[in-house]
């Protein structure tokens, strides 16, 4: 049974400029113990999807609709606000992008890290402190005892992100959602953080959803990948397959546009023509169609749906023109 199953999630926002379809029919299937990547550019809806799952999207101005959001078998939509709150930070935890702004600058890390334990596990301060020290050691903070009373601004960038992760792991969640955890860090630190995540997953069996816009990072880290564009999933496959034979034109363009070390210096960079979509005014047919090199007339009028390929439910694509040349009828 999947740990997390999302069916046809829609999150729309009423704004002064129109109805923003941030998430427009997303379905995810996350098996326990796996590392699932969600890749897409800014505005593709990857963060909003996860915020919606966690219940962190305020409902005015947001409008949320889904066929199902199942976590460990429970439908999250049927839970009360209180029940949902008890899951957050406890069974499902989130690590955010920028640790400098995501940690409270006015509180010590001891304060912030012990909070989930005090609230969700009903521990007292001593017990919580012990657990936090253990976790800080595990994420690689040297001499944690002396750093408990420190404030976030007294840590370096990489250390801060480790603290964030410790905070997320403190209640031993079964699902860890990481929203671009390495984007704000430089490359060497990035590698360290990814190592840490891998280790944690191996040791604790935590399921990880990894959100990023960086394909390279996703390649090295995730078991399977969902590619999102304009609020919809355009392709889903195991990592190797995705990189070997991408089916959706967008995925292919993304792969092509990553600069390679063995490129000739005189070669121009490959870019995806056009500009990111206006989420209040999506085209009638396929959302990627205005920028697609392979579009046919059908793409302008009909909106494609995410469908299985090769009869494999973990290999999906949402396109009328398969890059292997098959045209869906």
């Amino acid at each position, binding site marked *: 049974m999947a740990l997390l199953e999302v069916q046809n999630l829609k999150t729309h926002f009423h704004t002064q400029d129109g109805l923003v379809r941030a998430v427009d029919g997303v379905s995810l299937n996350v098996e326990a113990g796996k590392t699932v990547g969600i890749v897409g550019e800014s505005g593709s809806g990857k963060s909003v999807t996860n915020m919606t799952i966690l219940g962190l999207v305020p409902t005015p101005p947001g409008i949320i609709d889904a066929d199902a959001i199942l976590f460990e078998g429970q439908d999250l939509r049927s839970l009360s606000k209180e029940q949902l709150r008890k899951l957050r930070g406890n069974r499902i935890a989130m690590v955010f992008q920028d640790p400098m702004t995501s940690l409270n*600058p006015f509180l010590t890390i001891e304060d912030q890290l012990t909070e989930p334990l005090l609230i969700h596990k009903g521990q007292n301060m001593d017990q919580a402190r012990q657990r936090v020290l253990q976790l800080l050691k595990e994420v690689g903070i040297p001499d944690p005892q002396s750093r408990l009373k420190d404030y976030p601004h007294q840590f370096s960038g990489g250390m801060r992100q480790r603290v964030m992760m410790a905070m997320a792991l403190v209640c031993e969640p079964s699902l860890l959602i990481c929203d671009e955890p390495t984007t704000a860090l430089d490359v060497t630190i990035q590698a360290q953080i990814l190592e840490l995540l891998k280790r944690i997953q191996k040791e604790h069996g935590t399921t990880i959803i990894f959100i990023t816009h960086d394909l390279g990072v996703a390649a090295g880290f995730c078991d399977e990948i969902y590619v999102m564009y304009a609020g919809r999933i355009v392709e889903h496959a195991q990592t190797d397959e995705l990189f070997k034979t991408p089916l959706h034109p967008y995925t292919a363009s993304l792969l092509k546009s990553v600069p390679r070390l063995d490129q000739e210096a005189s070669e121009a960079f490959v870019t995806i023509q056009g500009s990111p979509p206006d989420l209040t005014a999506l085209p009638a047919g396929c959302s990627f169609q205005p920028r697609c090199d392979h579009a046919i007339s059908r793409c302008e009028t009909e909106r494609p749906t995410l469908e299985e390929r090769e009869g494999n439910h973990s290999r999906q694509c949402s396109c009328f023109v398969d890059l292997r040349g098959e045209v869906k009828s």
Partner: protein
Amino acid sequence: MFKFIVFRLFWVVVTVWAVSTITFFMVRAAPGDPFMNEVRNLKEEVQAARKREYNLDLPLIQQYGLWLKGMVQGDFGPSMKSRDKTVAQIIGQAFPVSISLGVIAMFFAVMIGMTTGVISALRQNTFWDYGLMGFAVLGISIPNFILATILIIVGVFLLGWFPLSGWETPYHVLLPAFALSLPFAARISRLSRVGMLEILSEDFVRTAYAKGLKEKHVVIKHALKGAILPVVSYLGPAFALILTGSLVIEKIFDIPGLGKIFVLAAINRDYYVVLGTVVVFSSLLCFFNFLVDLSYAFLDPRVKLEEAA
């Protein structure tokens, strides 16, 4: 930290000295003297004798020096109107009254202001928000003597809860302090609303909710410390304005405070009383500003004290 405190206290003393010196020369600069408005038939010799008594026949600089010396020793000089009291005595009687009025008003202002501001921020764009902020704008659009009058009409005449004037029982304190606090409560309300809204849109608040914390917990433990900063910055100037606002309130409610004494002394050219009051108020103000700056270090761990200095 210690260095900071010493440094700042030194500046407090310098400021108070500067203020009193400026005041001294300003008060004496105007044409006329304390006895102008008195019984106009005073004979010349009597006038001269009076002047000698108060050292008014000496050169100005010498008067200043004498006065300064006296001040340092705690002698504020004699009053020229109430001839049986020294300035120190007059101020000593009225000071506790004014200071209690001011402190209670400040307390009301912060309590009322912050509560309404936070509620407005949490329930943004709802009826609560518009209603409370509407009241807040009222508080800063009407002169305080009118506000006080309205409160008197309601509190004394309509409801009969409060006595009209005087300063005997605790009940006498409540209405004047409340009237005094209202414009400041209004301003603090708007400030804390803005501050709170800004903090609530910060990432770390999002993290707090993602950890599964309750709204009350997030607001009080996580958001409040940051939201309070613009309010704290305002407290310094607010205190000065509360001191001056008390002039009007003391007059309306007939409270024997320092404000009334100051205005009378200014009109009557009772130099030493005026100077004494200015020195007292100025010291209060400087000291209060110093406390405010000190508090930044406790509120925001990112602030190093040298920056605050």
